[in-house]
């Protein structure tokens, strides 16, 4: 199992920019309950990093530790050359967009957005100007005088965003801000948030359990499982080269193939192909879209596969077929849509697309 430092070495985006926030070996327990173990992570300037995980994975706790609402049991937070975790939340240059927005019900939209500036005791003229600009940026200028109870969920979310951004923080934390919105609005907001981040240029740390959302929006994804980082990488990398079986299954669909390597030959049920993997048991991830219908004879170097159609799921642009192979192997194939999929079908795949992954241990 690689150390978390190694896992934190995501490529491209992060390594070319300077580091803004460093999470060093942070751990958190609530009594006997260990929620985070040994988390080390670096957030680069101007990057959109998503902390992705199931409920209970610890992602919200990690976010709250960065915001200052929880203190880590051990480990440190560094930002701008200073210990961040020594500061109370109201002294950190970090702001949060809360999951249920947490707008002040007794203040208008305009007063909500200006709240953070007024507690800094900025001159009123500057406050008013910045508030107006922030509201324009999130397209809520019209509703400046309204109370939160009068605007919709999506609008409240924009106000919460404006309220945090108007403070010009170095880092913006977003705690599943889109989870309360319905699907279409959610997709729209994903695009808007992404372009907003590009426009404003500050680092966003975004927490979600929705892997599709993570892939759409992020520069890098940090996948958290049961309090530990499974993998930190760009969406492309995490999708095409998942480190573990869990990652492969959590992000997108995949087929997990178990096999045995002996003298350069990998055997998996009735399938076999040549490989450079070391001898011993092997676990491979093969994405359904990498398995193709074999119309004619087998392509060179491709592995042939046959299966009886069990189920099909229509996804609009594609279909996901569920098939049972001759040796009882259940696998999925993503294809174009056709009326006449039925019976026993022939497929093939390039063995290079079968990516070796580490097994994911069952953790306690």
């Amino acid at each position, binding site marked *: 199992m690689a150390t978390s430092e190694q896992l934190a070495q995501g490529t491209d985006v992060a390594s070319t920019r300077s580091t803004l926030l460093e999470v060093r070996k942070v751990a958190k327990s609530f009594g006997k309950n260990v929620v985070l173990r040994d988390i080390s992570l670096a957030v680069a300037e101007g990057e959109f990093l998503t902390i992705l995980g199931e409920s209970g994975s610890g992602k919200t706790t990690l976010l709250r530790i960065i915001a*200052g*609402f*929880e*203190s880590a049991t051990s480990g440190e937070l560094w930002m701008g050359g200073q210990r961040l975790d020594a*500061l*109370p*939340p109201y002294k950190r240059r970090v702001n949060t967009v809360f999951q249920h927005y947490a707008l002040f019900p007794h203040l208008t939209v305009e007063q909500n957005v200006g709240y953070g500036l007024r507690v800094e005791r900025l001159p009123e003229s500057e406050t008013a100007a910045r508030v107006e600009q922030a509201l324009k940026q999130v397209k809520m200028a019209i509703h400046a005088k309204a109370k939160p109870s009068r605007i919709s969920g999506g609008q409240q979310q924009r106000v919460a965003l404006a309220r945090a951004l108007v403070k010009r923080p170095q880092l913006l934390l977003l705690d599943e801000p889109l989870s309360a919105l319905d699907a279409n609005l959610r997709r729209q907001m994903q695009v808007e948030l992404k372009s907003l981040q590009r426009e404003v240029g500050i680092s966003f740390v975004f927490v979600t359990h929705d892997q599709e959302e993570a892939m759409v929006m992020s520069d890098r994804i940090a996948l958290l499982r049961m309090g530990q980082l499974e993998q930190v990488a760009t969406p492309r990398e995490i999708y095409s080269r998942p480190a573990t079986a869990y990652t492969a299954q959590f992000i997108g669909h995949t087929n997990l193939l178990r096999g045995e390597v002996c003298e350069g030959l990998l055997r998996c049920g009735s399938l076999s192909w040549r490989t450079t993997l070391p001898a011993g048991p092997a676990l491979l991830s093969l994405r359904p879209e990498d398995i193709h219908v074999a119309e004619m004879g087998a392509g060179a170097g491709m592995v042939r596969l046959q299966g009886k159609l069990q189920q099909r799921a229509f996804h609009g642009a594609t279909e996901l077929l569920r098939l049972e192979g001759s040796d009882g192997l259940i696998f999925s194939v993503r294809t174009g849509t056709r009326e006449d999929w039925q019976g026993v079908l022939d497929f093939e795949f390039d063995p290079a697309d079968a990516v070796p992954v580490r097994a994911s241990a069952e953790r306690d």
Partner: protein
Amino acid sequence: MELLVSNDPRKRRPSGWLWVHALLVFGFLYLPIVVLVIYSFNGAGVGGFPPRDLTLSWYRILFGDQAIWDSVVNSLGVAAAAVAIALALGIPAALALDRAQFPGKALFRRLVLLPLILPGIITGLSLLMLFNEAHTKLSLLTIILGHGTALISVATTEVFAGLQKLDRAQEEASLDLGATYWQTFVQVTLPNLKLSIIGAALLIFTLSMDEIAVSFFLIGRDNTLPLEIWGRLRRGITPEINAVSTIIFIFSLGAIVLWYRLRAGAEGSPEITPELIEPEVQGAQS
């Protein structure tokens, strides 16, 4: 002024002066009761410091006091009757307020709740005038009518709160499965209200036992316990009153612990929901 210290909201260390204030207020609230109990054992009587001569003689005198016992019996009877009346009317009132629409509903709601916040003297006097015009003699019956009327509001409030917590889907499921309205009421609604009703009964009983403001004006020949004590107070202080007060305190303590356990047991800590009116608990009015 640092009201909250510490970065971690889960472990707010309250700043010093809040602690001190809370301690002082608790002390203030409990001081008279503690003094009362201590001096009920004081041989030298009420007053004087420090207390000396530990004795049970006041309790012995108390137990031999027939007038007190008569008034206790009267109070118990009145309280039981008040519970019956308040529940018999308060439960339908809560149901009506929660579910039915009828003309004058707003006025009805306000009238029912008024005795909760009105000084008892107004409730007591207005009823006195009623009984006077109706040429009804004052007796335990008039006291029962007074208590019942004043305490309907308590029953209504408690049951209403219980109705609000009720999951309508349960009743709808019952109807969906074929039960009639009446069956649903008896088999689904009432059991869910059980806790509210018991809690209300306990509260009403205790309030009735302590009630003095309304009873003051409606008393006939027979005294309730508070009025018996009151009569003696007018004549002078005796430690016997400390003794009976201590006993009252112990019973009240028992009642409230019971009430609290009942509610906490069912649904976690009781959430005071200001649906109809804020304070559900109401000490004796004056």
